[in-house]
Each structure stands twice: as structure tokens, then as C-alpha cells.
């Protein structure tokens, strides 16, 4: 069976992914482009006896190598193997889209153009002459609508036809001045009957563009003697006409003019008198006074929902795990094995699964903001503000993603082209409290604040984290990252109804990643903590206390001895030893060794902080590990000032192991992780120290 390899190219927001979805496929391969962490999606399917392999290239406004996505796309188009370029165009946005198309035309490859979103364009009263456009571009143009699933069949047929047909000559036409010089050169080639693999026209264009490779080729040929004077004269003419010697610039202007011309000839749209729906929504959402409060209200609402609605399933999950632990203990008896399974593994994982509802709701909200297009409005509204802190309006997107999980947030920072902007953003993403820190806040808020205040306190924590981050950004911008700003030019896309499928995909992936962490990292960490908190066994202490318990006068006293034994055991365990060794560092913040251990375990994963506290305090008081009793235990054991300092420390210190790995990769080296560790730990320590002493003074 013959294979047709297709490079799918288009600007952002033209419905490329949706088009691949509606084509339908039997094989999907998701990977990365070599050397960079830009997603590479490849789909495979069969149609009419041909095997199609479509590579979905990242969205690029042009091939200018301005962003990483543009670089990847440009590199693929120039050096990878493919048969046909499929250029997807948003028909409602012809002129801008055709700019990229003109660049693609210059690649001189077989190409098919999909005039996508034709349904939307027609609804807007747009009229497009696709045959005329095909004639102008010299490439077949097919009207498609990925959302209505129309034109797909025709598109595939055209791809097969194009594959079978010989190459069309690209019809990129230039202005008369340049065309004249091209003609002069072609005439010379014809007269000399010059032998070349390229067409004469292509060769002439490349020479006028001062393409080095081409120059090398002709330079060694006898024709050079006659070619040189013609070429210099040609260039001289062009320079004179354009009033610049920058050939790049000249050809860029030519492209722009060509795109403009093609649109004028083929595209008519009615004058818009009535405001579009997007404009009417934006009148409110982007209002210069109400815009910001609306945004803040939406964020506040999201956090309230996360907390309030999330509480309902949480109770059931809590109950389920309490029963499971009890059942496991009944089944396995009271030995060491039962303890490692129930108190170690199940308790640890249970504490993680407990917060799944919160995380799902929060991720759902963020995905909703992103897919509707509201996120770029937010960037518009906030850039003025963010810029003051040395950040970029676009920094907002990775930063807000940071509220969900730092891992995708670090990756989202790639949208920032300027390295300094990106690094500053990367450094402060950790201050945006991720979903995994939420359990810690929930636990401490539950323990120290009233139920009515819970939502407000959580909101405050998140906002405070963000403000600390902004302040840190300003400090970084003024010290480590001085320099020029990245220009701010950003498309504000039309509002779109969120695709449930897409949101579901995002939310379920995030939730699954979280659970997978629970199943692997946190399970292992929980067992490790259980081991470290139960060993080494102190036989002498054990016998001594057992004797005391047996001879106790009252059952209450026996209970007390039992608790003391557990506390003693823990204190002499490995975990206790580590905690005590590092306690002096944290003592000024009001942390005891248990809190110290929990924090240190949090370097592996933030979820472990809660499960560590559960095991540490739970066992020492002989209570079962369900959350309510953990809350009570924490309230009883931790002074309020220490709790405040603890929350602040958790807000600011290093994110989890997985996120740290991603950070190092995105920042471009392990040494950056070293900087981040020093930077966040120092900040966390200082802030907690101040907060602890202030709270002590106030209470």
C-alpha cells in the first residue's frame, strides 16, 4: 500500500486539532519533537487504498522562528520527509492566515489548502471564491468545516490526487519590479541553456533572495561570468525601488502584498453593522472598570466551588478509606504486615485520594477559562499590572496553571519567547499554590478556622501566594534578570463554546496524573515513612511499657501509657532521628520535629505532607487515621502561630520532585534547580519566621 505523508500546518486557533479529529484515525502517536518539549502528534489511517500519515505541526503564525513552535514547524518543513503540506486556514481570518501560506508557497512543495471554518464564515456572510484562490495560489483549495464534518471527503480525495500528480509550480507572484528582474534572469538561463535541478524561476528567486547555497552552486559554473553583472544590476534596481538593501525585508513586504492581493481578489465580506456576539460579551468582560472585578469574582467563585462542592464527595471517600483500613486490619490481624498495609499504604493513599474532588473541580474551572478564550482577555486586562512586576501578560497563563499543578505550568511557560521573561515566570510558578498543596491548606484551615471562614481563608492563601510571587518576580527582574522586555502582541480569539470532550480530556488527564502519583510515588513514600517511623524497634522500651500497661490501675491510665509508648517509639525511630537533627533549623519558625519531617517529605510530593502528619500524629495518639480525627489532633498539638508559619512555608518552598525535574528541564539546566532551591527555601524561611513572630505577638 502506498504511503502519503502529510505535514499539517496552520496558525493557532484555526481548528487543526479538530480537523484531525473529524478525519478520524486508527492510530495516534503522541511524542515530542527531538530536542524540544513541543508535543508531536502523528495520526495514521487508511483511505481508498492509501496509507495516510499526518504529522500535526504546532500552531505557528509564521515561519519566522519567533517562538519555539515556529522553530519546530520551520525545521520540520525544511528538513523532514513528507509528501504534501496540508495548510489549514481559518476562512474568517483570510489575510492573516495567507501570510503563513505565502511562506509555505516558497518552500515549493506539494500543497493542499483547507479553507476551514467555512460554516462560520458563511454565517458571517463571507463570500469566498475558492476556485479563483486556487488559481492565484496554484494550489488546490478545499472548503471544510471540521465542526460540521463537511468537506473532509473532498479533502482526502484532493490529497490523493495531489500525491499522484506532478508538482505544480508555485504561483507566488511578486510586484512588477521583482517580476521583471526574475524574467531577465530566466531569459539568461534560457539563452545559456543552463542545467539545473531547480526550475529557472525558483533559481532566479533564490538568487534575488541572496540564498547562500544557491550562490555556491552557480558560482562554480561558467555561467557566473555573465550572470554576475545581470544579477547585480537586478539587485540594484530592486534596492532603488524599495529604498533599502535588506533583501529579507523586501521579500517580506512582497509576501504581505501578495496575501493582501489574494484576499482582495477572492474574498468579500459584508460590512459589519451589528456587533458580533464576541464583541458584545467583551464589552462587559473587557470593560475597563468592570473587567478586573469580574475576573476576580470568577476566580473567587472557582475557589469557593472547589471548597464547598468538593466537600460532599470528600466525606464519602473519607468514610470509605476508614472502613477499608478497619476491614484490612480485621482481615490481617494486628501484626506488622497488617500495619504496613493499613497504617502505611492505605492511610497514605487514602489521604491523597481524599482530595481528588477538589482537584477535579479546580482543573475543570481552569480548563473552562482556557478553552472558551477568556484566558487571553485576562492576559489583556492584567498585562499592565504584570508588566510592573517584570512579567508579561502571557505569564498569567502559566501562573494560573500553576494553581492546578506546577508540572503543566512549567511547560506552559514556553509561550514566553524571551528567555528572561520565561525564567522569571518559571521561578515564581512555585509560589502559585498547586492542587497538591490544597490538602495541606484544607487540613490546617479545618483545624484552625471556622467552617464559614474556610473558603475565604483559602482564597486569602492563594492570593497571598500570588502576591509573594509577584514581589519575588520584581526582585528577580531588578537583580538577576535585568534587561529588555519581550514585545507583547497577542491574538484575542473569538469566544468559543467549550468542547466538553476537550475539557474532559484535560481534566481526566490531570486527575489521572494525580492518582498515578498517589499509586506510585506516594504509595512508596508512605511505606517508607511507615518503615522509618516504626524502626528501629526498641525492645527494652517496649517491655518496660508493656509491664506498666499491664500493671496499670485504671484503663485510662493504661491508655495513657500506650500513647506514651507510641510517642516514645516514634521519637526513637529513624524518622524521629532525622527530624530531630534538622529541628534546630526550623525551631525559630515554631515547628516541632514532626512538622519538620512532614515538610522534608513534602520535597518528594506535597500530598505526602498530609499523610506524614497523619501517620506521625495519628500513631502517637493512638487514633485511627480518618481525617476528622487528624484535624482534631493537629488542633491539639500545633500552636496557632506555628500553624500559620507552616502554611506560609508550604506556600513558598520547593515544589514536588516531579515538578522540580520539569523545572530543571524547562529552565535549561540542573543549576537552575539549585538556584530555585536556595531562592524558595530562603524566602520560605524568612516569611515563616516573620509570620510566626507576628502571630505570637498578636495572640
Amino acid at each position: 500500500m502506498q504511503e502519503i505523508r502529510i505535514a499539517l500546518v496552520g496558525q493557532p486557533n484555526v481548528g487543526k486539532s479538530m480537523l484531525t479529529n473529524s478525519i478520524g484515525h486508527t492510530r495516534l502517536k503522541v511524542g515530542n519533537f527531538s530536542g524540544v518539549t513541543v508535543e508531536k502528534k502523528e495520526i495514521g489511517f487508511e483511505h481508498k487504498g492509501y496509507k495516510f500519515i499526518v504529522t500535526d505541526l504546532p500552531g505557528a503564525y509564521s515561519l519566522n522562528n519567533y517562538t519555539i513552535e515556529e522553530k519546530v514547524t520551520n525545521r520540520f518543513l525544511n528538513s523532514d520527509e513528507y509528501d504534501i503540506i496540508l495548510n489549514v486556514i481559518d476562512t474568517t481570518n483570510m489575510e492573516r492566515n495567507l501570510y503563513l501560506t505565502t511562506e509555505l508557497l516558497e518552500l515549493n512543495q506539494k500543497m493542499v489548502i483547507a479553507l476551514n471554518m467555512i460554516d462560520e464564515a458563511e454565517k458571517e456572510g463571507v463570500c469566498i471564491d475558492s476556485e479563483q484562490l486556487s488559481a492565484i495560489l496554484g494550489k488546490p483549495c478545499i472548503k471544510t468545516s471540521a465542526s460540521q464534518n463537511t468537506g473532509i471527503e473532498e479533502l482526502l480525495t484532493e490529497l490523493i490526487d495531489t500525491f499522484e500528480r506532478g508538482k505544480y509550480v508555485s504561483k507566488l507572484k511578486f510586484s512588477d519590479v521583482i517580476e521583471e528582474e526574475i524574467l531577465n534572469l530566466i531569459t539568461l538561463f534560457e539563452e545559456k541553456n543552463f542545467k539545473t535541478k531547480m526550475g529557472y524561476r525558483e533559481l532566479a528567486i533564490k538568487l534575488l533572495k541572496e540564498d547562500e547555497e544557491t550562490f555556491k552552486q552557480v558560482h562554480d559554473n561558467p555561467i557566473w561570468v555573465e550572470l554576475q553583472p545581470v544579477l547585480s544590476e537586478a539587485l540594484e534596481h530592486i534596492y532603488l525601488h524599495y529604498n533599502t538593501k535588506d533583501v529579507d525585508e523586501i521579500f517580506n513586504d512582497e509576501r504581505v502584498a501578495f496575501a493582501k492581493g489574494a484576499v482582495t481578489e477572492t474574498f468579500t465580506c459584508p460590512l459589519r453593522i451589528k456587533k458580533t456576539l464576541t464583541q458584545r460579551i467583551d464589552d462587559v468582560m473587557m470593560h475597563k472598570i468592570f473587567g478586573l472585578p469580574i475576573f476576580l469574582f470568577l476566580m473567587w467563585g472557582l475557589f469557593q466551588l472547589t471548597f464547598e462542592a468538593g466537600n460532599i464527595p470528600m466525606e464519602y471517600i473519607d468514610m470509605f478509606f476508614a472502613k477499608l483500613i478497619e476491614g484490612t486490619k480485621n482481615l490481617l490481624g494486628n501484626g506488622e504486615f497488617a500495619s504496613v498495609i493499613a497504617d502505611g499504604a492505605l492511610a497514605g493513599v487514602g489521604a491523597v485520594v481524599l482530595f481528588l474532588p477538589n482537584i477535579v473541580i479546580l482543573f475543570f474551572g481552569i480548563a473552562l477559562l482556557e478553552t472558551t478564550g477568556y484566558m487571553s482577555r485576562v492576559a489583556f486586562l492584567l498585562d499592565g499590572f504584570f508588566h510592573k512586576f517584570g512579567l508579561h501578560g502571557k505569564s498569567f497563563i502559566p501562573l494560573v496553571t500553576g494553581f492546578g499543578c506546577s508540572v503543566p505550568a512549567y511547560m506552559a511557560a514556553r509561550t514566553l519567547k524571551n528567555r528572561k521573561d520565561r525564567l522569571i515566570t518559571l521561578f515564581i510558578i512555585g509560589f502559585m499554590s498547586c492542587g497538591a498543596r490544597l490538602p495541606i491548606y484544607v487540613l490546617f484551615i479545618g483545624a484552625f478556622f471556622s467552617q464559614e471562614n474556610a473558603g475565604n481563608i483559602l482564597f486569602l492563601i492563594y492570593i497571598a501566594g500570588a502576591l509573594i510571587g509577584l514581589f519575588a518576580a520584581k526582585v528577580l527582574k531588578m537583580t538577576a534578570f535585568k534587561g529588555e522586555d519581550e514585545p507583547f502582541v497577542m491574538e484575542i480569539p473569538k469566544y468559543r463554546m467549550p468542547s466538553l470532550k476537550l475539557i474532559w480530556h484535560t481534566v481526566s488527564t490531570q486527575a489521572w496524573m494525580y492518582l498515578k502519583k498517589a499509586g506510585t510515588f506516594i504509595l512508596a513514600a508512605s511505606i517508607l515513612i511507615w518503615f522509618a517511623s516504626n524502626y528501629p524497634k526498641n525492645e527494652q522500651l517496649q517491655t518496660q511499657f508493656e509491664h506498666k500497661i499491664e500493671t496499670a490501675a485504671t484503663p485510662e491510665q493504661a491508655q495513657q501509657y500506650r500513647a506514651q509508648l507510641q510517642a516514645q517509639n516514634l521519637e526513637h525511630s529513624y524518622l524521629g532521628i532525622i527530624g530531630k537533627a534538622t529541628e534546630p533549623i526550623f525551631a525559630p519558625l515554631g515547628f516541632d520535629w514532626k512538622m519538620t519531617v512532614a515538610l522534608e517529605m513534602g520535597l518528594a510530593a506535597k500530598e505526602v505532607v498530609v499523610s506524614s502528619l497523619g501517620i506521625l500524629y495519628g500513631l502517637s495518639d493512638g487514633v485511627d487515621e480518618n481525617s476528622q480525627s487528624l484535624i482534631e489532633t493537629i488542633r491539639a498539638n500545633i500552636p496557632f502561630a506555628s500553624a500559620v508559619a507552616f502554611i506560609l512555608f508550604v506556600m513558598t518552598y520547593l515544589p514536588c520532585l516531579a515538578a522540580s525535574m520539569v523545572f530543571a528541564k524547562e529552565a535549561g539546566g540542573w543549576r537552575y534547580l539549585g538556584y530555585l532551591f536556595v531562592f524558595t527555601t530562603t524566602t520560605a524561611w524568612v516569611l515563616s519566621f516573620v509570620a510566626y513572630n507576628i502571630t505570637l505577638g498578636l495572640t
Partner: protein
Amino acid sequence: MTIADLKVDEKAEIVGIDAGKEFKRRLNSFGIVKGTEFVLKAKTLTANTFEIEVNRNMIALRRGEAQKIKVSPCKR
């Protein structure tokens, strides 16, 4: 006169882009091209960010960038 000097809902034509090659191309790929008419659709309260409509596209620009785009207002 630059974009930063326009009023909201004012229509103008781009007469020149006073910027480096790289940034000019970036603008071009967004449809911000010499000779094109556009409307200033919105600006933030502090006039730090501007939104223009070019060829039915909405593009956001920062003040610094807006000042690099020379315009001449269209008569009503």
C-alpha cells in the same frame, strides 16, 4: 501619531512600523501591515494595553509596542 494616541472606536490607517525586523515580521504575521485600516477597540484603565481590530482579528498590544506603530486617523 501612534496607536497609543488614538481614542477608543477611532479608525486609523497604519502608515509605518518603527521597529526592528524581527518584531515587524511578528506584527506582519498578525496582519498588522503598513496600509491596513484598523479600529482601536479597547484600552485598559491605565492605558497600558490596547486592543485593535485588524481584518476582523482582535490583537492586544502593550503601550510600548503601540507607540511603535505610526498611524493616520481616517476621517469619518
